[in-house]
């Protein structure tokens, strides 16, 4: 049984102007221990897919149809199902770490709170101990000090590690990572991605990764789906899609990666321009 099984998922958004079909019938699955990436440009509907699966879209905005099963349970119906799964069987790593935490409570207390969602019987001291060990697991230096810090006192990279630690604290079967490195500096991104790979190796967790960055996709994924305007245009093992793209859109996307080499000005190919240029 797949950890995440999505069949013909449709998400329609009732906005002020009109009804927008943000996700128009996508199907995919994520198995234990593997990383599946959905890659696309902004507006392709990839984040909406992730948010819809986690039922984080308000019901008076989004209408979800189709099927999405986490651990076999269908989350598209009553909210009662996803309520039992969030923080326990499935966790989210959000896009912008700077706005993802409650600004008026310390990082540590929020971590302890996350721990106790999964294990409510823990005492405060035990929860704190587990939180500290999780922070060590994500390689936060001096976790005791950061425990008492407020979110605004931490850097983006550190905050993302905290958020990853919270996701891990859920002992979940599935982690949904919505553009986890898009808001971070390039130098910090590599560390976060390494951390995710390491954690996956340790825990065998299934990872659904959303990104617009082809480099990230290539590094992290086992399989990849290319999304455009609400549907998948191509999908398969990452090496196949990247090395042999079939769909014109995928080809365009891949062609958008800058290549190193001598600079070639396409204007110089147009004969009239060449003539004009040489006549100055």
């Amino acid at each position, binding site marked *: 049984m797949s950890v995440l099984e999505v069949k013909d998922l449709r998400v329609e958004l009732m906005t002020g102007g009109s009804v927008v079909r943000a996700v128009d019938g996508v199907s995919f699955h994520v198995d234990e221990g593997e990383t599946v990436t959905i890659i696309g440009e902004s507006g392709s509907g990839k984040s909406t897919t992730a948010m819809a699966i986690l039922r984080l879209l308000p019901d008076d905005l989004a209408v979800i149809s189709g099927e999405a099963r986490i651990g076999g349970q269908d989350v598209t119906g009553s909210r009662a199902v996803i*309520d039992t799964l969030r*923080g326990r069987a499935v966790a989210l790593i*959000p896009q*912008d770490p700077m*706005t*993802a935490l409650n*600004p008026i409570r310390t990082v540590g207390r929020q971590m302890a709170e996350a721990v106790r*969602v999964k294990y409510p019987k823990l005492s405060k001291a035990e929860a704190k101990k587990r939180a500290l060990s999780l922070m060590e697991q994500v390689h936060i230096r001096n976790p005791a000090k950061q425990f008492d810090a407020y979110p*605004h006192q931490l850097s983006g990279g550190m905050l993302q590690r905290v*958020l990853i630690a919270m996701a891990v604290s859920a002992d979940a079967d599935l982690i949904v990572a919505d553009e986890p490195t898009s808001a971070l500096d390039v130098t910090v991104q590599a560390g976060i991605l390494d951390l995710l790979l390491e954690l996956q190796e340790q825990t065998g967790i299934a990872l659904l990764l959303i990104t617009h960055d082809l480099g990230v996709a290539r590094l992290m994924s086992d399989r990849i789906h290319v999304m455009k305007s609400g549907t998948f245009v191509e999908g398969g093992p990452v090496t196949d899609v990247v090395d042999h793209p079939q769909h014109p859109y995928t080809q365009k996307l891949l062609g958008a990666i800058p290549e190193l080499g001598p600079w070639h000005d396409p204007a110089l190919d147009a004969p009239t321009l060449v003539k004009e240029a040489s006549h100055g």
Partner: protein
Amino acid sequence: MLNYVLKRIGQTVFTAFLATATVFVLLRMAPGDPAANYAPPNPTSAQLEAIRQQFGLDQSIPVQFLTFLQHLFQGDVGTSFFFKRPALEVVMERLPYTVTLAVAAIVVTAVVAIPLGVWMARRANTAKELGANIATIAGQSMPDFWIGFVLLIVFAVNLGIFSPAGFTSASSIVLPTVTIAILQIALISRLVRREMVVNLAAPYLTVARSRGISERALTWRYAFGNSAIPVVTALGTRFAAMLNGVVIVEVVFKWPGVGELVVNALKQRDFPLIQATVLVTVLLALVVQLLVDLLYPLMDPRVRLGEASA
């Protein structure tokens, strides 16, 4: 931090001084001779002149102001023309009544407006909330003196539950408090609603929801915790404003507070009394405002005093 406090105290003193000076000058520029209010009927010019001398009104304005300042540093704001007692004394006698009214009103406001605002935010954009929305708009649209009279007519005159005027018993505070509170509850509950709606839609709340935090904890520990900051600030600011602003309610209910005092003093051109009232109420309001501002960093760990806020 100490620098900031000193700077604010300095600003407070300066503003109080500015208000006092402005009132001082305005009073003496107003037409009409205050001496006439305190003279026997059909006074002779000699009698009027004597009274003016007695009140020190025969000097030029700058001289009067200097004399005033001189006395001020000795703690003397002048003697009330009407009561013939130190003006400061008269004001301080009445001040507790006004403060009590303001405290009662702000407590009632907080107790009612906060749950109401949270309720409105949770049900934002529903038919039920539309009704509450319109009701709060109505609440801030009614003139406070009119509300006072209507309450008096219904409860005091017709039903005889409360006394129609003055401070005759502990229950006399009920109607004036309700009158003030209606407007404040309308304003504060709308503020709570606005802040809660923003916080309920904020990214950190969605992420917390994804962690499985219960809706109740999300509403109170997350959204309300963040909303509380501007709400407490607003409550403090309104309390400070009330110390000057309950004038009308005091007049309607004949509540023996500072507001009623100053309205009568204006009619009687009792300069020292007006001066003393302005000084005391402005200082008190500024001090409360200062305390509220100092409270801010205790509530919001992102803010440090003296630094420019975002």
